C-alpha cells in the first residue's frame, strides 16, 4: 500500500489516518515486535524510530526510550532487521524516523539502500531542514524512498514554500513549538497552519507532537489528514497500560463521525 493510498483510505472512511510510533529495541530486543503487534491493528501507517544518543527534537519520554534501547546494544543493522520483521507482518507504509548523524555515519548511499531493502517506504529526518542538503534528499528519493520533513507553528511562508516541496511522503506538521511529548490540548491555530501548507503542496499533512487522547486527536483530525502518536504510547507502556486503550481513544477522536475500533 502506498502512502497516498493509506491516507486516501482513511479519508474514504471519514476519518484521519493514525500513525503510531514504535522504536527499535524498545522496551527490549524482541519485545519491540510485541508492541508493533499491538499497534498494527490501529495503524494506517507506522513510524519506526531509530534510537539515538542525542535526540534533541524529542522530549523526555522518547529520550528515555532511546537510552533504554541503546543500552540493549541496538545497532543500525538491528533497526533494519526490525523493519524487515515488521514488513513481514503488514503492507502498511513504514516511515523510519532518524536523526541525521547515523545516516552520515553509515554513509547515505548505504543507509538508504539498507532501509529500502528492509522495506521502509520513507524517511522522517527531524534535524535536517531539507534545504541544508538537497543532494542528500535527492539521493534518498533516487533510492526509492519517500521523504518527510517537519513544519512548525513558527514556520514562515518562506519556510513553508521551501520545505513542503521536499515532502514526497507526507508533511509532518508539529503541533506546538516544542519537543515531542503528550499534551492535554493542542494550541489553537492548527487549521490555519495546515491551510498555509496546503496552498503549497498536495501531499497529505499529518499532525505530530502532543497527540495523546480523544480531544487532541479530534483537534488533529479537524485540521489535517493524519496524526502521529508517539510519546503517549511509550508512556502507556511505561505505566503498564495496554496500548489498545490509548489507541482506541485516539482513533475515536480521529474518526470525524466518532466511530471507534480497529482498522481491520
Amino acid at each position: 500500500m502506498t502512502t497516498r493510498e493509506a491516507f486516501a483510505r482513511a479519508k474514504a472512511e471519514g476519518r484521519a489516518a493514525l500513525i503510531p510510533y514504535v522504536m527499535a529495541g524498545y522496551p527490549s530486543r524482541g519485545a519491540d515486535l510485541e508492541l508493533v503487534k499491538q499497534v498494527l491493528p490501529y495503524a494506517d501507517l507506522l513510524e519506526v524510530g531509530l534510537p539515538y544518543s542525542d535526540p534533541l527534537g524529542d522530549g523526555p519520554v522518547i529520550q528515555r526510550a532511546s537510552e533504554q534501547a541503546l543500552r540493549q546494544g541496538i545497532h543500525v543493522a538491528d533497526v533494519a532487521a526490525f523493519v524487515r520483521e515488521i514488513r513481514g507482518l503488514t503492507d502498511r507504509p513504514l516511515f523510519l524516523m532518524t536523526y541525521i548523524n547515523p545516516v552520515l555515519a553509515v554513509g547515505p548511499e548505504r543507509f538508504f539502500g539498507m532501509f529500502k531493502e528492509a522495506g521502509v517506504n520513507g524517511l522522517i529526518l527531524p534535524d535536517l531542514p531539507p534545504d541544508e542538503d538537497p543532494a542528500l534528499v535527492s539521493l534518498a528519493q533516487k533510492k526509492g524512498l519517500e521523504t518527510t520533513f517537519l513544519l512548525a507553528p513558527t514556520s514562515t511562508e518562506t519556510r513553508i514554500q521551501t520545505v513542503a516541496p521536499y515532502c514526497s511522503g507526507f508533511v509532518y506538521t508539529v503541533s506546538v513549538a516544542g519537543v515531542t511529548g503528550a499534551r492535554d490540548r493542542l494550541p489553537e491555530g492548527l487549521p490555519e497552519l495546515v491551510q498555509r501548507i496546503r496552498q503549497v503542496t498536495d501531499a497529505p499533512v499529518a499532525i505530530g507532537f502532543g497527540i495523546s487522547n480523544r480531544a487532541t486527536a479530534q483537534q488533529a483530525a479537524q485540521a489535517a489528514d493524519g496524526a502521529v502518536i508517539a510519546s503517549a504510547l511509550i508512556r502507556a507502556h511505561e505505566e503498564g497500560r495496554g496500548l489498545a486503550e490509548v489507541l482506541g481513544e485516539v482513533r475515536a477522536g480521529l474518526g470525524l463521525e466518532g466511530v471507534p475500533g480497529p482498522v481491520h
Partner: protein
Amino acid sequence: MQLPSYPLPDARGRYADFGGRYVPETLMPALEELSEAYLHYKNDPDFLAEYDYYLREYVGRPSPLYLAENLTRHLGGAKIYLKREDLNHTGAHKINNTLGQALLCKRMGKKRVIAETGAGQHGVSVATVAALMGLECVVYQGAEDVRRQALNVFRMKLLGAEVRPVESGTRTLKDATNEAIRDWVTNVRDSFYIIGSVVGPHPYPMMARDFQSIVGEEIKAQLREKEGRENPDVVIACVGGGSNAIGVFAPFAYQENRPRLMGVEAAGHGAASGLHSLSIGAGRKGVLHGAKMFLLYDDDGQIQPAHSVSAGLDYPGVGPEHSYYAEAGLAEYVGITDEEALEGFQLLCRLEGIIPALESAHAIAYAAKLAPEMEPEQVIVINLSGRGDKDVVEVMRVMGEGQGSSAEGLVQGGRS
C-alpha cells in the same frame, strides 16, 4: 570599535562543507531572525559603542600581552608572550562573547536567556551578564557536573540564575546542550539562547568568533608596540569547542602571511585509550548541536562521550570553522594528555606565579615542547584563556592520586 568581517562563512553559514543549520524546523525562523539582527547590529554605531564601553569598563579590556620571561628562559628557545584573558572579569575569555550576545538579546527585545554549561564557567559568565542587563537567566548543567562543581552552581545562583540539572544521557555538557536547545525550541518566541562556544547552528559560530576576535586583534596591536611587528611566529591555544582559539586564530587565518596556528586538543589518557577529546585528531565529519563538524561517534553515528581532566575541553565536537581550518591546512591541531597538561599547569604556577585554567595548561604544555626547538628571535603567543582557581581542587585530587601524597588527605578534607 568595529567587529571584523572574514571571508567565511558563506551566506548559508558554511565553512566549506562544515557548519550549517541542522536543527528542528521550529528553530529555523529564529535563526534567520537572529542572523538578520546580528548583521544589522554588528554595523550599528550605538551597539558597537555600548559593547566597547562594557568591554573596557566592565570586563577590563584590553587584557595585557605579558612577556613570560621566566618561562622563556626556562625553555630556552622562542620568546613567549601570554595573552592574559585570565585577567578578565569572571576570569576567562568567555565574557567577550556572552556580553556581545546579551547586548544583542536586549536589542532584540527578549527578556529571558538560556545557556548550557559544563563545569560552570560559561554559565557563570552568562549569569553575570544577565544580572548586569536585568535578564531572566536559566542555565542547564549536567547533573554529574552540578555535583562536581558545587561552587560554580552557587555562584550562578548568587548572580540570580536558575540552574537546572540535566539527568539525561551522560549527564554532562553534551546533554546540557541538548536540553538548552529543547528549552529554546519550546520558548523560541521570547528567549535568547547564548551558546558558550563556536559551535551550534549558524549564525552562532560566526557571532561567537566575531566577539572573540578582539583577543587576536589586541595581540596584533600589542605586538606591534612590543616587537615592531603584528605577526608572531606561532599562536597556541587550547581547543574544546574552540572559542578562545578562534578568537586568536581568525584574525590571522585569512591573511597571506600567516603565523603557525596551533590548536591543542585534550588527548586525555592518550589517543589509543579511547578516553580523550580529540575531535579533530581522532574524529570524523558528523552533525551535533546543529552544525557539521569533526566529531567523536561510533560506527552507528551514536555520539561518544569525550574525556579530559579539564571540564572545558570535555566536548565530543569542535567548531565548524576549526574543522575547516584543519581540513584546509590553515591551522594545525595537536593533542596534549591529562598528565602533560598537569605538568604545564605546575610549570606556569612555579615560574610565573600564574595559576592557569586546566584548559589553558594544555596550551602551555604544548608551548613547552615547541619553544625549545625555536630561535630566540622568534615569538610565540599563548592564549591564556582562563585562570585556574576553579581547578585547584581537581588538580589537588589528581596529583594526590598520582603520587599517593598527603595532598589526597587535604582534598578529602576540602570536599567533605
